[in-house]
């Protein structure tokens, strides 16, 4: 003989708290989530305030796209409320439509982030110049001009990496040859060429370990480095700066650190990818829950529609929190 056990207070409120169980659960969960993101934003604060002059980049992210994504999340917060309201009014087909719209908007947000924004960063190159070599790259950095205006100096040259021309120099020969063989590089008059599309941060680390070797990076410059004394670039522009046709050659010996805009490129990108990546994971989590409520979970409507409405309300609270995190993350990374 088996007894069926049901969880109490899934629909009506507990008399002592005035809340149904899931409501308490979701708020405690959100409080712990606030701690999680709070810790990460705290790290952001620490890194941002500790960054030396010119080491915290501005204007590298696409503000109109970020604004669009914010609008999408705000809109999805309304559609999830509409889904809940439709359930409360016992309009099941409307509920399904609003829930599907919420999922659609969440997927658009994720698409913009993961298919458009992230890959663009992964394909962008930046080289931090050593302090003693900054003067050599003045035509691309414009630090004399910036100093005359009392602005922070630039220490990074960014753009699209065309190629790297590598020579053995005084590098350890067996080590150098092993590198050439590993990456199957072809020789042209004693120079080996690494194509920009083949370049990775891992290759950069291997290049760094080839002490004594000579390398020249050919970079198609971002507009800000092509015309660094243009007052337009005194502050970050609303629209992302386009690539110029101008190219620069940077000596490996003058580079402090170079790489694609991946998490290991800089403190900015490490904290950017960590927070926005975790936020994206939360969006994925929300989509999974919403898909369940739209699919198998919606069977509950026939048995107890109020119970389903409560579940959707809790998921909606979570969704508002996800929106809230983005409202804070957007200006911190894109604007300030």
């Amino acid at each position, binding site marked *: 003989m088996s007894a069926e056990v049901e969880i109490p207070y899934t629909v009506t409120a507990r008399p002592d708290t005035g*809340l149904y169980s899931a409501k308490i659960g979701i708020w405690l969960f959100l409080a712990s989530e*606030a701690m999680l993101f709070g810790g990460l934003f705290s790290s952001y604060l620490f890194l941002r305030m500790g960054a030396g002059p010119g080491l915290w980049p501005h204007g590298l992210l696409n503000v109109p796209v970020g604004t669009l994504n914010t609008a999408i999340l705000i809109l999805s917060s309304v559609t999830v409320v509409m889904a809940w309201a439709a359930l*409360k009014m*016992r309009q099941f087909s409307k509920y399904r439509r609003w829930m599907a719209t919420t999922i659609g908007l969440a997927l658009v947000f994720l698409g913009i982030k993961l298919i458009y924004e992230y890959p663009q960063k992964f394909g962008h190159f930046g080289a931090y110049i050593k302090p003693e070599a900054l003067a050599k790259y003045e035509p691309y950095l414009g630090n004399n001009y910036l100093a005359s205006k009392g602005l922070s100096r630039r220490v990074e040259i960014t753009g699209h990496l065309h190629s790297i021309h590598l020579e053995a120099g005084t590098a350890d020969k067996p080590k150098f040859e092993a590198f050439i063989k590993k990456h199957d590089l072809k020789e042209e008059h004693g120079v080996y060429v690494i194509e920009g599309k083949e370049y990775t941060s891992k290759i950069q680390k291997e290049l760094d370990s080839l002490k004594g070797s000579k390398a020249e990076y050919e970079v198609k410059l971002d507009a800000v480095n092509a015309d660094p004394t243009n007052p337009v670039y005194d502050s970050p522009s609303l629209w992302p700066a386009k690539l110029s046709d101008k190219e620069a050659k940077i000596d490996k010996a003058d580079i402090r650190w170079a790489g694609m805009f991946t998490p290991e490129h800089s403190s900015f990108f490490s904290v950017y990818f960590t927070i926005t990546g975790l936020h994206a994971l939360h969006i994925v989590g929300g989509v999974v829950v919403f898909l369940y409520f739209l699919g198998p979970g919606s069977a509950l409507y026939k048995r107890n529609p109020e119970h389903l409405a409560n579940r959707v309300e809790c998921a909606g609270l979570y969704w508002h929190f996800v929106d*809230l995190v983005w409202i804070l993350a957007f200006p911190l990374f894109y604007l300030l």
Partner: protein
Amino acid sequence: MSDSPAQTTPAPNEIPAAEAAKVAKYVRISKTVAAISFVLTVLTVAVAYMTKGNVLLSMLVVGLNIVAVAVYAMHLNAEQSHIRRAVFFSVLFLLDMFLVTLLAYSDRIHLPH
């Protein structure tokens, strides 16, 4: 013991008028908050550009946006005291976490820059 007996789904016209009005009011509030939130987002962008990245002013607008969403869209204003207390303490802890981070920069021994 269960408080959720199987129910037969009532037709839309069987929803009590008071309940329907409550739902409609909440939908109205949510739409208003969303509109305000969007306007504040655009304002944040505008402030950041017009003031060349004035952090305090921008964060003030962001703070307003966050409060609007938390208080009205997540209806904290109408929530039970247990919930408000839990949120209050987590916000307090959060602010403390930021404060401790900021204190690192008033440390006379370790001055990063």
